């Protein structure tokens, strides 16, 4: 009724509505491209044993949805152990990463000293030493340090990144001089200025780096694969690869385990998406 009245009054408005609907349909079609594989994964994870995972035409609606495969994934492999390991890796790496990045970036931004430009270039050069090419030499260095197959060997290489230093240097250098000068006049030493004044001011940048750090540590796979030999120290991504090895043909259990591994990172993303998306636009990854 209302639509018809609208149409009579203004045919232009109607055309605009049609175009708007078409635009939304396009957005949804593209979205299907990006979340479709995840939906298929979830559907496979909750399908009862009596229903084909594959087949023509694809039968994506589980009848009825079951949670058996999550239980199986949980018990077939030390899933809880992998999960706990990942929590430990993130819990140690991210705070240390933030502190070290801030300590390194602060003098590069705020203190005039000899060799400042050179030190900055040095830390930027990390960008040209990609992890994939460091696998072999780092493996040997961990051997020399006696750290092979330890939690430390997973954590240490993840602490320093050029992106963290770069972004924090930007943030520190934007702090107004008057604030720092006022603290100096009050007799604060440089470390007190750093910790009590500068760090709280750059908290938004630290938050962004914390999220990026969480995502990257949670997803880390290849370096732990190289350095770890005991299954009891595997992070979750490595655990999933392990699950796909042991369960072989059990496509539902593998899907369930993979869905479980995605949940924490997706939850964090949903809670903090605005911050993540805004930061990624500005900060090109290093």
């Amino acid at each position: 009724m209302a639509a018809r009245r609208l149409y009579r009054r203004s045919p232009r408005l109607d055309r605009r509505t049609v175009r708007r609907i078409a635009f939304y349909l396009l957005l949804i079609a593209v979205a299907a491209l990006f979340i479709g594989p995840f939906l298929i994964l979830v559907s496979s994870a909750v399908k009862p044993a009596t229903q084909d995972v594959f087949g023509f035409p694809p039968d994506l609606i589980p009848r009825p949805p079951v949670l058996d495969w999550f239980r199986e994934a949980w018990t077939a492999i030390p899933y809880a152990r992998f999960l706990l390991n990942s929590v430990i890796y993130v819990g140690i790496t991210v705070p240390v990463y933030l502190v070290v990045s801030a300590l390194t970036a602060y003098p590069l931004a705020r203190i005039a000293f000899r060799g400042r430009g050179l030190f900055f270039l040095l830390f930027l050069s990390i960008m040209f030493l990609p992890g994939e090419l460091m696998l072999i030499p780092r493996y040997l260095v961990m051997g020399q340090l006696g750290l092979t197959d330890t939690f430390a060997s997973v954590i240490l290489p993840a602490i320093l990144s050029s992106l963290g230093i770069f972004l924090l240097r930007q943030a520190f250098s934007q702090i107004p001089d008057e604030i720092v000068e006022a603290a100096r006049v009050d007799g604060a030493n440089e470390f007190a200025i750093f910790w009590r004044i500068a760090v709280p001011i750059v908290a938004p940048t630290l938050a962004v780096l914390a999220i990026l750090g969480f995502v990257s540590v949670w997803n880390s796979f290849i370096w732990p694969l190289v350095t770890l030999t005991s299954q009891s120290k595997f992070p979750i991504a490595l655990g999933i690869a392990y699950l796909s090895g042991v369960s072989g043909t059990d496509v539902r259990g593998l899907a369930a385990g993979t869905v479980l591994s995605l949940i924490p990172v997706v939850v964090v993303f949903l809670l903090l998406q605005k911050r993540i998306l805004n930061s990624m636009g500005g900060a090109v990854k290093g």
Partner: protein
Amino acid sequence: MAVAGRGSLKGRVVGQRWYTPYLFLVPGLLLYAGMFAWPAVIAIQLAFSDYDIVNPIRWSGLDNFTRLVHDPRAWIALRNSLLFVVMFLPLTVVAPLFLALLVNVKLRAIQAFRMLYYLPVITSMVAVAVAWKYVFNREGVVNWLLQLAGLGPIDFLFDRHWALPTVVLLEAWKNAGLFMMIYLAGLQAVPAEHVEAAEIDGANRWQRLWHVIVPALRPTFAVTLILSMLEAMRAFESVYVLTRGGPLDSTLTLGYYIWSKAFEDYDMGYASSVGLVLWAIMIVLALVNLAITRRKDA
């Protein structure tokens, strides 16, 4: 050095010693030395040595590199990596621009769509590779669609012609959201007056894109181009999880070849020499990219 530093700094800043900034840098420098500098030195040393983990490292001069030149699998890996770049660039440098144009509108729900497109970026390569195995399975959804179109079925991951394109597609799909956000930042820096002026002059959508937006995005293209090339050259995790270099070496990239030589054959010296070559290629690509974008700016 110390005297000059002290002199110039003490005059300006009260309560600050000449060594204060260096104290701040100590943890970062220690980590840099242990996790980057020292490994880099070892990588170079290994490239000119024989090392199999059991026996001590033995200097072997240029042997690894002469071996490399005569190693057919190394050439296959190089060819595959270059093919990877060629297929990858249009998917990550061009396609995400259209994605960014699509979401560069003012709609209440647009943030939700950006988020959905970004989802693969934050998930682990292992997880998305598992998801892709369901989608590109012989009995998966893609083959069903092909069948509806009267094509296929294709064994995407087990056919030596299709395996590499499938891995490239996975990498492009996983990174599309990131490149979209980079373009979105670039688009939002394009002056709206320029686009409006072109519109008033009667330029249609494509003309505005080609003559106004694309030239304004030049710095952004420089960034996406180099990111994309480096990403393609070092592609490894996707290969590891999806195909393990197979079938018949059709997805054997330089990155995967290095890993397999080092950690399957324990041929660490040789693997490092391949790594050094890959390193050199990546640095050359970065420099070429820098030179091209510099020249265009001038």
